[in-house]
């Protein structure tokens, strides 16, 4: 089965072509550059390089967030349209889950996260148990300190994985001290082949209803709901 993997949910632009669980090729950059301009040319280039025609694709895997709203939409729109046009299945994978594959051999909790601003992070807690990935704490948009405190209470080592690790190092050390493990640069970004691997563990999504997992309401919607609540409580 030939799988095209697409990830533009964060800074990394990742494209991979896999034959089942084998990587045939991949393109990955970690740059603050326009995903919209570069994604399709990257797919085109990689397909040409591995000598595969678009009609030979059997499945599309895509990072569905959380991450940059626009980035997630670019990846999902491209992936969904490709899947629909080619008539092949699509599988959406959590961007956090894909990143947690960087901790495949870690004994303890894996905590991937993305900066969501204002002290908040998009994060979940994962754990590899006999080669299977488990997800004891689901992906959420939350204050990082709360997650850190919960992890500290568990008393197990925690591997932190994040492209935004630099801004949170101090906070992590303060809360977890020796329990925190923070590896070198390359481990903090998602490898598209890992995303492809994760996609093989699940059933395809419905092409039409697969939607971004923003983990957060649009600001206008959140404000509107808040106002409605206030109106109600003011009688």
């Amino acid at each position, binding site marked *: 089965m030939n799988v095209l993997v697409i990830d533009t949910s964060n800074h990394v632009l990742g494209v991979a072509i896999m034959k089942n669980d084998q990587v045939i090729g991949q393109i990955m950059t970690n740059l603050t550059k326009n995903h919209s301009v570069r994604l399709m040319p990257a797919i085109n280039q990689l397909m040409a390089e591995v000598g595969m025609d678009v009609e030979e694709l059997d499945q599309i895997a895509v990072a569905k967030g959380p991450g940059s709203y*626009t980035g997630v939409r670019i990846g999902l729109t491209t992936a969904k349209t490709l899947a629909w046009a080619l008539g092949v299945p699509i599988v959406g994978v959590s961007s956090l889950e894909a990143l947690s594959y960087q901790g495949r051999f870690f004994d303890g909790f894996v905590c991937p996260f993305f900066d969501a601003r204002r002290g908040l992070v998009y994060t979940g807690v994962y754990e590899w148990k006999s080669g299977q990935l488990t997800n004891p704490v689901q992906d959420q948009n939350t204050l990082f300190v709360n997650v850190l405190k919960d992890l500290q209470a568990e008393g197990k080592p925690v591997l932190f994985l994040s492209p935004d690790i630099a801004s949170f190092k101090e906070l992590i050390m303060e809360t977890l001290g020796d329990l925190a493990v923070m590896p070198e640069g390359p481990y903090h970004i998602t490898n598209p082949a890992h995303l492809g691997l994760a996609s093989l563990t699940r059933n395809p999504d419905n092409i039409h209803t697969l939607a971004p997992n923003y983990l957060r309401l649009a600001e206008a919607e959140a404000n509107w709901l808040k106002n409605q609540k206030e109106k109600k409580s003011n009688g």
Partner: protein
Amino acid sequence: MGEFKMKNEKIILGIETSCDETAVAIVKNGTEILSDVVASQIESHKRFGGVVPEIASRHHVEQMTMVLEEAVEEANVEWKDIDAIAVTEGPGLVGALLVGVNAAKALAFAKKKPLVGVQHIAGHIYANRFEQEFTFPLLALIVSGGHTELVLMKEHGEFELLGETLDDAAGEAYDKVARMLELPYPGGPEVDRLAALGKETIDFPRAWLDEGSYDFSFSGLKSAVINKIHNAKQRGETLKKEDIAASFQASVIEVLTTKTLRAAKEKNVKQVIVAGGVAANRGLRTEMQVQFDEAGIPLLIPPLNLCTDNAAMIAAAGTIAFEQGKRDGLDLNANPSLELI
């Protein structure tokens, strides 16, 4: 049996997501609509009193493949007969445009079709070609929430800007006045409806600008309306909403009609077309028809469903661009401030 295609025919699939409509259409020869599907988001933006860009983008990504599927099924064409994918590349809301552009690129790649980026306003102009073939030179008045422009066309795909708004677009003025009158969203059609019930009792200003100018300005008029409502409130007077709407609309229509008529005569055009969301305004349509009938210049205003944003118009403009050899690469990007010329 699908739609039968003749050798020289061009069938173009168009995608439009510049604002709050997710739209896909399939058009033959730029003149015949085979399908025209629009998923409107009006209901979700209503509670915010206007289009929220982030929410519009979210809806687009959720709707896109469904709208595509419906358009293709409805058109009953074979993929091999579709010649190109046309898509709005701008102007518009960047996040919204990005969904359409990336869908178009993926589609062009998967189906191995040429890709053609289309300017949204050119689309509005070409919506008229479903009604009647163009005769050049022609003059187009484009009036919408984002645009007020007078454009001269000497041939297909060639646009010369005669004048444009120096501040607010006509549709923007409508929205602001609607908000002042506390009318439900979308406000433009409401103002139009009320205006038909009221009388022009207030003499609002007409911005003619420099002599001979084809430019427009609506911010002065907008301020005059706001002041009028404000002053009346302070004095405890009540103005009829219908009369305010009628007086405001009379000013807008007189300026639009007069300038368009003058340009049409001066440029000796064979046809005048009105395009854009405000072309749906009944007051404007009626007055334009009267004035241009009197002047003996053929006037073309598309039916209401083609005035508002749709993808048939993008496919129609894309057909001309495609025939003229325009091709875009897979690096096509959304351009929120793309100009017509």
